[in-house]
C-alpha cells in the first residue's frame, strides 16, 4: 500500500531499495574474496592478519548490532529512522554469520571460542525467526481481528455469555449445568504454550456446544426453539473464542523470540569478551 507517497506496505526487507542488503553483500563479497586469495601456511585461522581483520570487523559488528537495543530506546535523536537501523541490523546481522565463520577458519572445538560462535549463531537464528514473525504475523493478526481489538472481542464474548444464560434458562438443569461450566471454565490465553498454540483443546464452551447439540433433538416445541438458539449462540461464542485465542497467539509470537534474542545477546557479549581476553593472554 502506498500512503501519501510514502510506501508503507513495503516491508523492512525492501527498505530504501535494498540499500542495506547491498551494503552487507559488499562486505561479505570483500571478505570472501580476501579469504580466497589469502592462503596462510598454517591454513586459515583467527591468528593471521586476515583473521585479525575479520575478527575485528566481526566484533565491531556485534557491538553495533547489540547497540540497536540502546538506540531503539533513545528517542527523538539521530538523523536516521529506526527503520533504517532495523534494516541494517538484519542484513549486517546475517553478514556477520559469514564474516565470523570465515574468521574462525572453520576451526571449532570444545572451548570458549566456539561457545561465543554458537551463541552468535543462536542470536542470529532467533533474529531470523523474529524477522519472519514480523513479516508474517501482523497481516494475519489484522485479518483475524476484522477491525476489532482484543478488548472489543472480550466485550462481545461477555455479552454473548449473558445471552447464553438467558437462552438456557428455560431448558433443563443438565443444559444449565453445561452452560454454567462453559462460562466459568473457559479461558483465553494462559501459560506460555497455551498462548503460543492459539487453541484450547479442552475449551469448555466447545464441549458445551457439542453436548447441547447432541441433545438438541430431544427437545420439542418452545424448548426446541430455545435449544436451537442456544446452539447458535454457543457456536458464535466458540468462533469468537477461537479468534481471541488466535489474537493472543499472534501477540505472543511477536514477543516470544525476543526472550531468546536478547538474553543470548548478553551471553554473546560476555563470551566475546572472554574470547578476546583469552586470545591476547595466550599470545
Amino acid at each position, binding site marked *: 500500500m502506498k500512503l501519501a507517497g510514502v510506501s508503507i506496505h513495503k516491508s523492512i526487507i525492501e527498505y530504501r531499495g535494498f540499500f542495506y542488503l547491498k551494503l552487507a553483500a559488499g562486505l561479505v563479497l570483500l571478505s570472501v574474496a580476501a579469504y580466497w586469495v589469502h592462503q596462510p601456511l598454517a591454513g586459515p585461522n583467527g591468528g593471521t592478519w586476515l583473521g585479525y581483520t575479520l575478527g575485528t570487523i566481526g566484533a565491531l559488528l556485534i557491538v553495533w548490532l547489540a547497540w540497536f537495543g540502546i538506540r531503539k530506546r533513545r*528517542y527523538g535523536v539521530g538523523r536516521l529512522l*529506526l527503520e533504517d537501523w532495523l534494516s541494517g541490523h538484519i542484513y549486517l546481522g546475517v553478514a556477520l554469520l559469514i564474516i565470523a565463520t570465515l574468521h574462525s577458519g572453520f576451526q571449532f572445538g570444545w572451548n570458549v571460542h566456539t561457545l561465543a560462535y554458537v551463541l552468535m549463531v543462536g542470536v542470529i537464528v532467533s533474529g531470523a525467526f523474529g524477522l519472519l514473525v514480523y513479516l508474517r504475523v*501482523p497481516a494475519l493478526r489484522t485479518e483475524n481481528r476484522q477491525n476489532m481489538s482484543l478488548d472489543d472481542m472480550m466485550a462481545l464474548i461477555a455479552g454473548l455469555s449473558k445471552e447464553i444464560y438467558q437462552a438456557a434458562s428455560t431448558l433443563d438443569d443438565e443444559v444449565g449445568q453445561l452452560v454454567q461450566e462453559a462460562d466459568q471454565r473457559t479461558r483465553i490465553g494462559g501459560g506460555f504454550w497455551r498462548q503460543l498454540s492459539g487453541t484450547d483443546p479442552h475449551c469448555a464452551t466447545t464441549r458445551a456446544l457439542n453436548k447441547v447439540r447432541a441433545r438438541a433433538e430431544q427437545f420439542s416445541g418452545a424448548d426446541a426453539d430455545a435449544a436451537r438458539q442456544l446452539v447458535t449462540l454457543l457456536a458464535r461464542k466458540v468462533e469468537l473464542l477461537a479468534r481471541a485465542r488466535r489474537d493472543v497467539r499472534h*501477540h505472543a509470537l511477536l514477543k516470544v523470540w525476543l526472550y531468546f534474542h536478547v538474553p543470548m545477546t548478553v551471553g554473546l557479549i560476555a563470551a566475546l569478551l572472554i574470547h578476546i581476553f583469552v586470545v591476547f593472554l595466550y599470545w
Partner: protein
Amino acid sequence: MVERYQVAIVGSGPCGMSAGGRAAERGMNHILLERTDHLSDTIYKYQKGKHVMATPDILPLRSSMPFEAGRREEILQAWGDTTKNLGVNVRYNAEVTAIKGQKGNFELTLRAGEKIVAENVVLGIGLQGNLRKLAVPGGDWSGVQYQLDDPDEYESERIVVIGAGDAGIENALALAKQNTVFIVNRRDEFARVKEANQKAILEAIEAGQITCYYSADPKSLTPGRLVLTVPDGEAVVECDRIIARLGAIAPRKFVESCGIVFPNDSAEALPELSPRYESNVPGLYIVGALAGFPLIKQAMNQGYEVVEFILGNDIKPADQPLLEEKFRALLDRGRSVDEIIELIRTRMPLMSGLTPLQLREFLLDGAVHFPKKGEVVFERNDYTNSFFMIIDGGAEILIDPTNPAVRVNLGPGEFFGEIGLIAGRRRSATVLSGGDSFMIECPRRSMIKLINSVESVARAMNEVAMVRQLRTYLSPHLTNEALAPVLANAEIRYYKPGQVLFTEGEPDNGVYLIRKGSVTVARQIAGRDVIIAYVAAGNYVGEMALLNQAPRNATVKAAINTEVIWMDSARFRQMLDAAPELRGEVEQRLLTRLVEGETMKARPEAGNIIQFLVEQGVGEATDILLIDETLCVGCDNCEKACAETHGGVSRLDREAGPTFSGIHVPTSCRHCEHPHCMADCPPNAIHRAVDGEVYIDSSCIGCGNCSRNCPYGVIHMASKEPPKAGLLAWMLFGFGHGPGQDPSHKWGQKKGGDGPKLAVKCDMCKDLPGGAACVRACPTGAAVRVSPERFFSLAELTAR
C-alpha cells in the same frame, strides 16, 4: 421597607468580589449578592488543591483584594478574610432572578421573592450559568449532588448518575471502580458525546460494571429511593447517592431579560459595552467573564475599575501598561496610546463599528509590526492563521505562484490574511511589505470572536474576502469586470456535517466554491451510495452539470462544518466565456474528475476507506498519525518515544481508536484546520505553528476546557514527570523506570508528578530536529503521518 443601595453587585466571582471590596473601601452603601453559600463559586468548584495561575504575568493587579498564583484553598481563604476585614456587605443564597428599572432606581428580585433597590447594578455572574436541577418531587434530598470532586471518596455505595452527557459518563466510569453505579439516560443511545466516552461507557455496561436505564426519566424521589419512568412502566432504584449532571442553562437569557442587547445569535457574541463597562442600559454595568474577559486577574481589575467609574472617577484601565508596551516604538515618537487607538479606528474602516472598549481589548491580543519595504510578512504555504491590518505603508500580495511579478498592492486601511483564517489551511499567497509599514497582526481567536460579535466586521470582511477567494481559487488573472456579474448575486452558504449541497439527478443549480471545510462526492452504484471523491477547501464542485448541461451526476455532502461561495450557473458560464484561460482549466479539471470517477467506480473499497476516514474526522485534519496494521508489530515504541520526548506523558494512545481495512487511526491529535480545542482557552495558550502544528504554550492555566472541547479526546491533563534515572542505569541495574514504563504514561492513568496539572497534547515534536519521534521510533515503518489531501488522493488510494 425595601433596602436601598448606591450599588448592588450581582455575583461574587473574582470581579464581583473585587468590586465589593473596592466599594467597601470607598465607603459606598453597597450589597454583594451571591447565589451560593460561599464566595466565588467558579473558583470554589475547581478541583481540590488546584494550582490557580495569575496570568497574564505582565498585567498588574489592581484590586482591594489579594491575588497571586497558588493553591485554590489558599486563594479562597485570603479572599474570605479580606472580604471580612474590609466589611463587605455580602448576602449569600441570594440569587438574583430579575433586574428592572433604570439608573438611580433599579429593582432586583431575589429567588425568595425579596426585592432590593439600587442606583447602579454591576453584573458579574460569569459564564457558568445555572446548573439544571433535578425537578422531581423530593429532588431536594440531601443525597443529591450536582458535582463530583473526588470519585475516590466514595466506596461500596449504590450511586445513580442522572444525565448521559460527557460529564455524567465520566463520573459514572470513575465511580464504578469502587461502587455500584447506575446511569440514567433519557435517550435510547449515548448520542452527542465524545467517542472515547461512548465506547468506554458501552463497554462498562456490556461488562456489567454499570447498569444503564435507557429512555428513562426520573419521576419521583424519596430519600434512598429513586423512581424512574422507563419504556415498560416504572423502575425503582435504591441508592445512597445521586449525582445529577443535567448541564447548565447559559446566563444569556437572564442577561437579555435585564434589557441588555446582544449583537446577534451566535453563542460567542458578547454584549456591547462602553469603555466604562456600561451596557446599553445606563447604570447597568457588566464585568468579568460575562463581558468577555476570561481570566481572574482581568476580572478583579475590572471589579475595582467599575466601582471607580460609578464614583465618576475616570481612571485609566489597568491594562494601560500592556498597551504602552505594545506601542512602545510609537510612543517614543511622541504619540499617546489613546491617539494611536484613535488612529487605528479612523484608518481601518473594518474597525469603525467597534466600541473603544472592544477595540482596546482587541489590540491587547494583537502584535505590532513595523516591516521594512520588501520584507516578507508571511509565505505561501505557511500554516499561520492570523489576520493583518495595514495602518501605515502597504503590502504586496504575490498572487500568482508561477510569476512573482503579478502582485496586488494594498494600502493603509486594508487588510489581508483572511483567506487562511477562513479556510484554516495553508497561506495561499506570499505577502511582502509594500513600504515602511505599520501593521497589526491579530490572532485567529480574537478575530473570530470579533467576527461573531460585531456584525459590521463580518460583513466588511466577507465582502472583500469573496473577491479574493474567487481570484485565489479560480484564477489570479480574473479581472474585476469579468468577476462583477458573478459577484453580484454570489452568496456565502453554510453547511453542517452531513448536510447535502446537491443531490444526484437534480437539475443544475449553481457552482459551489468551498472556502472552508470539505465535502464528499458520492454516486449511486447498484443502489448504494459510493463515495468517489473527497474535495477540500479551495476547490469547487458543481461545475460538471453546468458544462455538460445535464443533471447532477453525483451527490455532494459536507464532511465537516463547511462554507461555500455559491455562484449562479448562467453567470459563471458567461465568466468562463470571457476568460478562456480559466475555461481551459475548468475543462481540464472536469476531465480529470471524469477519469477519476470511473476508476473509483471500479474500486468501491477506496470509497469505503474515504468514508471511514471522514467519519474519524480525518476530513478536518491537517496532519494525522495513521498506523498500517499489517506492519505494526505492537511494540508500542511509538508511545514510548512520545512519552520520553514529552516529560514522561505519551500524547498518543496506539491501541485505542478504530481500524478499517488495515488502517488504524490511533487516539492522537489531528491538528485540525479549525481546532476545536482553541475555542475557549482563557489565556489563549493554544496556537498553530508555521508548519501547522497545533500546540499549547506555557501560559496554560490547566482549566481543562480544551480537553473537553476536543472531539477526539486527545488532550489530557497531567503534571510533569519527576526526572528519571538514565537509560543505561535502567538497563544495567534496573534503576527507576524504563522508557515509557511509568504507569502514568498510559492514557487515563494520570498519576504523574505533583506539580500543577496542565493540558498536554501532541505538538508534532516541533522542537525536536528531525520530526515526529513516534514515526522515527517505529522499527517497521507502520506509523506514518499524513495530510488528508494526499491521503485522499485517488492515485494513492487506488494503488493499494
